[in-house]
């Protein structure tokens, strides 16, 4: 079965994206990346020295194996995010960017207005833009309209590991989306990732739950399986929960 994730024309076999923050060591991060099967990994531009070939994070990400997706984490407004994205491209990164505009440095909740503004500018400049966003169906459509390559609504506050607290809104976003929907932030367990895939998300992004697990490598593998199971169930067709019982051998079946 060919079930690939396609973003901006590029084909990926894994539907698990991984973040690289919060790990106890670059080595642990590397092992977790390998175990996760991820092909897209995000890196905070503020954490790395792009011009330094010995940078502790960049030096261990094999560009042949992973698409390095720089993110603009720390940007307070559209201007800052745009500047950072340009800087990454100028330093030789591919023109892909995970757009994060999070004026509040504690809960890192995305600013919808500034995110939309920045997305519009970056798309015009030729970037492939993947915006981190609140789970707002209208905003998802607005971002799609300005040309983002995907939308990345949050499942619950970042790092909170609370799972799909925004499930009802995510379902509306997924139903209406013409671009891949990547559920980002708040997924604390493989079951959360599976749930996101079951409701029809195209992919998920996980960081904290893997990075601060007792065994990050094992947790990365568990997420890989959760994502695969959820996707398989989605493709197999999940019956919706119903209020009334439905007999598998109906009594009036003979009338049909």
């Amino acid at each position, binding site marked *: 079965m060919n079930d690939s994730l396609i973003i901006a024309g590029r084909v990926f076999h894994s539907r698990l994206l991984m973040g690289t*923050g*919060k*790990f*106890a*060591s*670059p080595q642990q991060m590397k092992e977790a990346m390998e175990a996760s099967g991820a092909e897209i990994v995000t890196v905070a*531009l*503020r*954490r*790395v*020295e792009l011009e330094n070939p010995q940078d502790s994070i960049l030096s261990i990400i094999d560009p042949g194996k992973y698409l390095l997706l720089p993110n603009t984490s*720390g*940007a*307070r407004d559209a*201007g*800052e995010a745009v*500047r*950072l994205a*340009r*800087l990454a491209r*100028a330093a030789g990164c591919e023109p892909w960017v995970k757009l994060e505009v999070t*004026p*509040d*440095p*504690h*809960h890192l909740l995305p600013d919808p207005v500034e995110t939309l503004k920045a997305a519009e500018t970056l798309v015009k400049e030729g970037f492939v833009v993947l915006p981190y966003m609140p789970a707002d169906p209208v905003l998802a459509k607005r971002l799609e309209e300005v040309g983002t390559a995907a939308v990345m609504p949050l499942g619950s506050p970042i*790092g*909170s*590991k609370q799972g799909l607290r925004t499930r009802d809104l995510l379902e509306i976003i997924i139903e209406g989306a013409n671009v891949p929907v990547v559920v980002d932030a708040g997924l604390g367990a493989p079951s959360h990732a599976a749930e996101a895939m079951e409701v029809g998300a195209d992919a998920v992004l996980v960081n*904290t739950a893997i*990075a*601060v697990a007792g065994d990050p490598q094992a947790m990365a593998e568990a997420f890989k399986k959760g994502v695969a199971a959820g996707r398989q169930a989605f493709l197999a067709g999940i019956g919706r929960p119903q209020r009334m019982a439905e007999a598998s051998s109906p009594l009036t079946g003979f009338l049909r």
Partner: protein
Amino acid sequence: MEFYHELQKYPWDEVEAWIESRTASHVETAVGTQPMQLENFLSLLSPAAEPFLEEMAQCSHRLTEQRFGKVINLFAPLYLSNVCTNRCAYCGFNADNPVARLTLTPEQVETEAKFIHEMGFRHLLLVSGDSPHIVTMEYLHAVLEKLRPLFASISIEIFPLDGGAYCKLIEHGVDGLTVFQETYHEDRYRDFHLSGKKRDFRWRLGTPERGGDAGFRRLGMGALLGLCNWRVEGFFLGLHARYLLRTFWKSHVSISFPRLRPAAGAYVPPSPVSDANMVQLLTALRLFLPDAGMVLSTRESPVFRDHLVPLGVTSMSAGSRTEPGGYAHDSDAEPQFEVADERPPRVVAEMIRSKGYDTVWKDWDPAFLHYSKAG
């Protein structure tokens, strides 16, 4: 509303009496409560909480790991000048002390900075005594010109300035402001600060607010531990930090724990703070403010610092020299305080990694600020 008015709602003696009246059952309720109200915070600061240090430490560890990850940020201080017009009873820079005074030229600052950069640091804290006639805005601009290419983040810990001056410093590439209140006890404050501009309690207290208004991305604060009852000091520190977090919601707020330690020939702190007290203060603040950064300097001993790594600390200095010119120059200038942890940054980083934490040397980018050429 200015924080000064908030402060006045809580008379020192009443807070002290309230803390003393807490019992074990108050503490038990408080430890697991999130979000935490002021009342519970007071319980965690009380003598009744002392038997619960392990529980508090476990909670603090979990919360910190969830919010900040398994990482410790590293930074280094660079002392520009030890010339000072203040007479602070506890400080090596006290104007009355007949010691060698030195203000680095911008060229000397650059040499020091290159040395610090070579050690791996990308976050720098500029420190100076209170000497606005020497450390002028022009001087600071000249210094920043030299430093900007070398560091991802530059913070200042110098004498309080007005909002306009802070705006200018931000334009020149400073992203963080640190100022310690020393003590929140307004009357005792005047006993410790005998003369100079620093005697003005309210001017100093309002400094983080002027900095927040100006747009600093990081606000650092702290009380000098040892001057007054640390439990009450801790309460006001938490209250102040919460005020700053709520008012300047786009800025990081971090708390430092400068502790005066009894030492031969040095200033004898009137209210000494033990290691256990420090742990109680740090973990209580973490439980009250899960998002605040916690900073530990080289004032503390290697053994104590090593043990504090998993308890809620998010940021540490290492290899610090607290006299101007101390890194790359043969300096005889008086240090601000005696460094207790003299290990080179490389060794401190190794220790941090051995505890299961990654060391973060860069967690900011100058491109965020508007002066960036990339824009």
